């Protein structure tokens, strides 16, 4: 009897879409290489062919056994746990936690590391359930200055500065402070 769930069908569909999209896109670079018979598309197409076969094998397993782990497999560190959401609130919270780092990464180019980081730290700490304001502010400042000290002052690592005002000006101010500090210490 089939043990297929909708999530299994969606999972298989995603893999098949990946195979089709990547195979279709491979015609964009389907050029011959004079010194190599299989060209630039040979290797990726073999990988895609194998991926198609194992996706079908996986579908067979899902059909027969559902999400059940195969007996004798080793190194499965993520045992299937009963993850159940108690309401729309926790789902929204999870989506926010997943989206926040991506928004932070997108903001690095216009806003820069120096301005975006404190906001990011506050939001993540709050999303992860910390409600004590003093702790939120204290830990944010601690992490921010620790990172600035380690990567800007000690290691002089280049970090994104942003390209719109006033964030760019703030980054320039931080870098000027760092230069002055280095000069005064003969670093």
């Amino acid at each position, binding site marked *: 009897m089939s043990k297929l769930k909708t999530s299994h069908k969606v*999972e298989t569909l995603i*893999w098949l879409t990946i195979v089709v999209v*990547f195979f279709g*896109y*491979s015609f964009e*670079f389907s*050029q011959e*290489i004079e*010194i*190599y*018979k*299989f060209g*630039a598309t040979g*290797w*990726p197409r073999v*990988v*895609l062919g194998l*991926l198609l076969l*194992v*996706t079908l*094998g*996986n579908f*067979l*397993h899902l059909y027969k056994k559902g999400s059940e*782990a*195969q*007996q*004798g*497999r*080793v*190194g*499965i*560190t*993520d045992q*299937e*746990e009963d*993850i*159940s*959401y108690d309401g729309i609130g926790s789902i929204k*919270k*999870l989506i926010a*936690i*997943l989206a926040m*780092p*991506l928004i*932070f*990464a997108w903001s*690095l*180019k216009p806003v820069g590391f120096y301005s975006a*980081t404190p906001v*990011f730290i506050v939001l*993540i700490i709050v999303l*992860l*359930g*910390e409600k004590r304001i003093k702790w939120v502010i204290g830990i944010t400042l601690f*992490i921010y200055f620790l990172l600035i000290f380690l*990567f800007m002052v000690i290691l002089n*690592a280049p*970090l*994104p500065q942003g390209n719109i005002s006033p964030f760019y000006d703030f980054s320039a101010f931080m870098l000027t402070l760092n230069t002055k500090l280095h000069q005064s210490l003969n670093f």
Partner: protein
Amino acid sequence: MIDNFIAGSNALFGDPFSIGIFIFGVIGGMLFGAIPGISMLTLAAILLPFTASLEPAQGVMLFAVIYCTGTYGGAITAILFNIPGAPENAPTAFDGYPMTRKGQSGKAVGAAVLCSAIGGVSSALIMMAATEPLANWAISNIGPPEIFALVFFGLAVASSVGGRTMWKGWMSVLLGLLIATIGQDPVGGINRYNFGFADLAAGIAFVPAIMGFFAVSEIFVQAEKKAIGMYEAPKMSLDFPTILELWTYKIAVIRSMLVGFFCGILPGIGATLAAFMGYGEAVRWSKNKESFGKGNLEGVISSETANNAATGAAMIPLLALGLPGGAMTALMVGVFQMHDLEPGPMVFYNSPELIWIVFAAMFYANLSILFIGLIETKTILYLLKIPFQFLAPMILLLASIGSYIGRGLVLDVIIMFGAGIMGFLLRRSGYSIPGIVLGIILGKIGEQNFAQGMQMVHYDVLEYLSRPICLLLIIAGFLTILTGIYKALSYSFRS
């Protein structure tokens, strides 16, 4: 050899500045390896420009020391947080993290310290004694066909561990191989799968992918548990294993040492494959296979002995042939080039003092793991006491900086978080994150060596298989795959 070693030691410890660099490398490597979210590669990438102001021997020595201690440091985060510091520590997490969840973190970390030191010291000794003969053997016996065959066997082994089913193990590895095809193809330099992004022409960088799949996805997994009230803080323990307990694993240590050293000396392979194969062999020879992945100390021992045994061995193709065995040794090539030196056979004749300072430093760095590692470990175990809501932003930011620094591209930070979300979803469905990462790392190496091998044998498969090492590895790979398929199909059709 002994005279050269003493001369190298004297040069290392006779100069206070060199001692300072050595200590910096030992502590820096351990810390950057052991802090979740960043790795020894982050430290190496930051330090690369500064090595221009050092003597060549000091620069190479610094990186070699960071390589040894950073490889060990990465085991700590793998065991305590399920975040391998480097890909070579991924199999360590298979059993190390379940041990932490059972309250046996001290035992796992203690075993990692000791086995990293044993693997590293033995590898350093063999490297000192046999670099030249081994390099000569490698030159005459190992070519692109053998390297491809080893990659094939390694991927077959990787697919057999980690995923919830054999199919998912293979899907993970193949996804990694597919990601590795993004960027220029290794033969003709033709752009593949850049989807209109110019920055993708250089491909997906290892560091953001590794950070995303390992560190960020683990943060998301824990954050999900926190969001639904299922989060359980890892348990701290300081119960280190006894010597008697470790003695029972002597065979596993010796076997992993040999596996690690063999993988290490092969150009382009390095410690990652060594760790997977060390772990895979431990499972293969064990009478208690079912206990692997659930907190078997032998899993930690095998993986850590093998990856550290590969560090010394990986220096052989680098120094003797000029071929890097992994990301860290590739950065070392950068150090050489900054001083107008080319690693290769001529280094032994032109700069023997450099070679022996590096050898001596690696030997002492591995010894330091044993002494400093045990002290440092007790401190690092207290990281488990930091509340998750404070540790998580720190790890995410360190990973962002680590990803950005390599190429100075914001795109790499976006890729890292994208990989994190992807890793989170794939883990929920039982896919193998280490399998994906190994696929990414070995994809380009595999394709390049397959192409070169095929050109060498004029596309004649029989000639390809007439090379004994190649044939042996290909047979071993196919046997692993066929056994896996048989087990998977017979399980699916069993009622």
